[in-house]
């Protein structure tokens, strides 16, 4: 770790969530503003203290410069702003870049916010088509590749190489649904079984409908500032950014170096190195879960279990309470909500709430260290952030 690393320099001082799931009649800007109002209240600051805004494009919004449009909508005039876009990995990059901007003096209080209305603003058909359009127009799109397909091919190869089973994939969905049943406001809370997943209809093999994440409306917001300023503000439980890393291995799925080992290995290695902790030290995790097999591969690549063991690890209860690494305790993209770019911010919201000890009946007892891994575009983009309480500094 270099002397100038971000470790412990920046803290999350406010968090907010809009309603999620089916939220008709609310634009992405409204959802973003609702989440931000709650984050501002949570931090007990005035909105005029926000001088930086990091956001991302919303499919259901006509605004090309969402962070700029949002600032106008919310009535602030920041001196640092940008829209980040590396698909599903964007969330963790927002935290890493916000921390770097604050540590580097570009801004004092940065708002990280994203919201979208994929379910009611766009409709599921158009949402899926828009995501499909994000594939290469020349070499991928003409073949009719659903957004699930690139991920499906990695999981399928994982099954071939390591003997991972459909039942093990389904165990991820079942576990996370159980988690969501204890999360107020989650989109899907009814209990499901392995058989329910296997009988839910094939989307693109090996993924059934219940192996796939949701299509949702919703947004999340966070306020970050320097550790010193958090102290001046008298923030009771600042949650510190103690490690960050990213890795980009390819754009096209056919240039992915290996279908079963991803850039998460390197992005998390960099985050662990900065934090000075190992995978086994983590108490709770938010693991990007666009599909069930994605979670299995990530639990391996993030170092929570050996390569090829992810299926057994999950089926053995290691990703839930009492296991090695309780993950996606809010239900994740599979059961809580998935509104696109904001999806992985919901993992951040849950991990920060866990580290603050605010999760009620879903609280992981004594959680001090948490990891969030965001990824996107068929594992093309990977970003990891490690968060910790004051005790972990």
């Amino acid at each position: 770790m270099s002397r100038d690393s971000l470790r412990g320099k920046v803290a999350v001082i406010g968090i907010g969530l809009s309603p999620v799931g089916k939220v008709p009649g609310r634009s992405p800007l409204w959802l973003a503003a609702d989440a931000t109002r709650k984050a501002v209240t949570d931090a007990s600051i005035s909105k005029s203290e926000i001088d930086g805004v990091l956001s991302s494009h919303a499919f259901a919004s006509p605004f090309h410069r969402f962070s700029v449009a949002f600032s106008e909508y919310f009535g602030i005039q920041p001196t640092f702003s940008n829209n980040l876009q590396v698909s599903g990995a964007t969330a963790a990059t927002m935290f890493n870049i916000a921390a770097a901007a604050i540590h580097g003096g570009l801004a004092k209080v940065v708002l990280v916010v994203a919201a979208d209305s994929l379910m009611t603003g766009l409709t599921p058909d158009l949402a899926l088509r828009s995501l499909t359009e994000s594939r290469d127009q020349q070499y991928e799109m003409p073949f009719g590749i659903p957004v699930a397909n690139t991920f499906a091919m990695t999981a399928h190869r994982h099954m071939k190489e390591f003997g991972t089973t459909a039942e093990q994939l389904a165990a991820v969905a079942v576990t996370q649904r159980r988690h969501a049943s204890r999360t107020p406001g989650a989109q899907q809370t009814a209990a499901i079984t392995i058989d329910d997943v296997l009988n839910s209809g094939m989307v693109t093999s090996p993924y059934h409908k219940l192996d796939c994440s949701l299509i949702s409306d919703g947004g999340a917001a966070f306020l970050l500032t320097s550790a010193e300023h958090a102290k001046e503000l008298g923030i009771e439980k600042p949650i510190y950014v103690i490690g960050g890393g990213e890795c980009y291995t390819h754009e096209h799925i056919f240039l992915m170096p290996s279908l079963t080992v991803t850039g998460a290995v390197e992005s998390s290695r960099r985050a662990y190195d900065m934090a000075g902790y190992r995978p086994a030290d983590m108490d709770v995790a938010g693991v990007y879960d666009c599909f069930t097999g994605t979670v299995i591969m990530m639990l391996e690549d993030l170092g929570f279990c050996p390569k090829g063991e992810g299926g057994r690890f999950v089926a053995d209860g290691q990703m839930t309470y009492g296991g090695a690494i309780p993950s996606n305790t809010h239900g994740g993209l599979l059961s809580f909500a998935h509104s696109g770019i904001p999806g992985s911010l919901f993992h951040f919201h849950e991990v920060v709430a866990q580290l603050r000890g605010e999760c009620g009946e879903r609280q992981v007892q004594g959680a001090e260290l948490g990891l969030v891994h965001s990824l996107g575009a068929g594992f093309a983009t990977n970003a990891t952030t490690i968060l910790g309480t004051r005790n972990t500094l």
Partner: protein
Amino acid sequence: MISAEDATRKPLPTPDADTAAFWHGLKDGKLLLQHCADCGRVQYYQQATCRACGRESLVHRAASGRGKVHSFSVVHRAPGPAFKADVPYVVILVELEEGPRMISTFAGAAPDEVTFDMDVILTFEKVSDEITLPRFRKA
């Protein structure tokens, strides 16, 4: 954001400066790979420079058309209205004999014919005056 009407049409590539030769080759019944005269790298897809050495000494050569299925996924729920009539179809990740991998779809009738590491061979599907798609059938 795309309109509902656009969503019913299959997306076709618009050849550009980097890819015109590729799509022209397919029209003539050839799947062109780029061979670097300097470093020997073979690459798919087409661009002006070698992705290994960065130089511009790329020569187009037709692929043998032989390859293996590295992975695949049978699509049962289409990505939007344009592909609904085609399901079930198999998206395949083919490893070409020359080394590069590419995305395509299986041209055989029965999706359950497809297995890992199965030998496949190139076939051509003309979809418009300009565009012919490279697809694969069982070898």
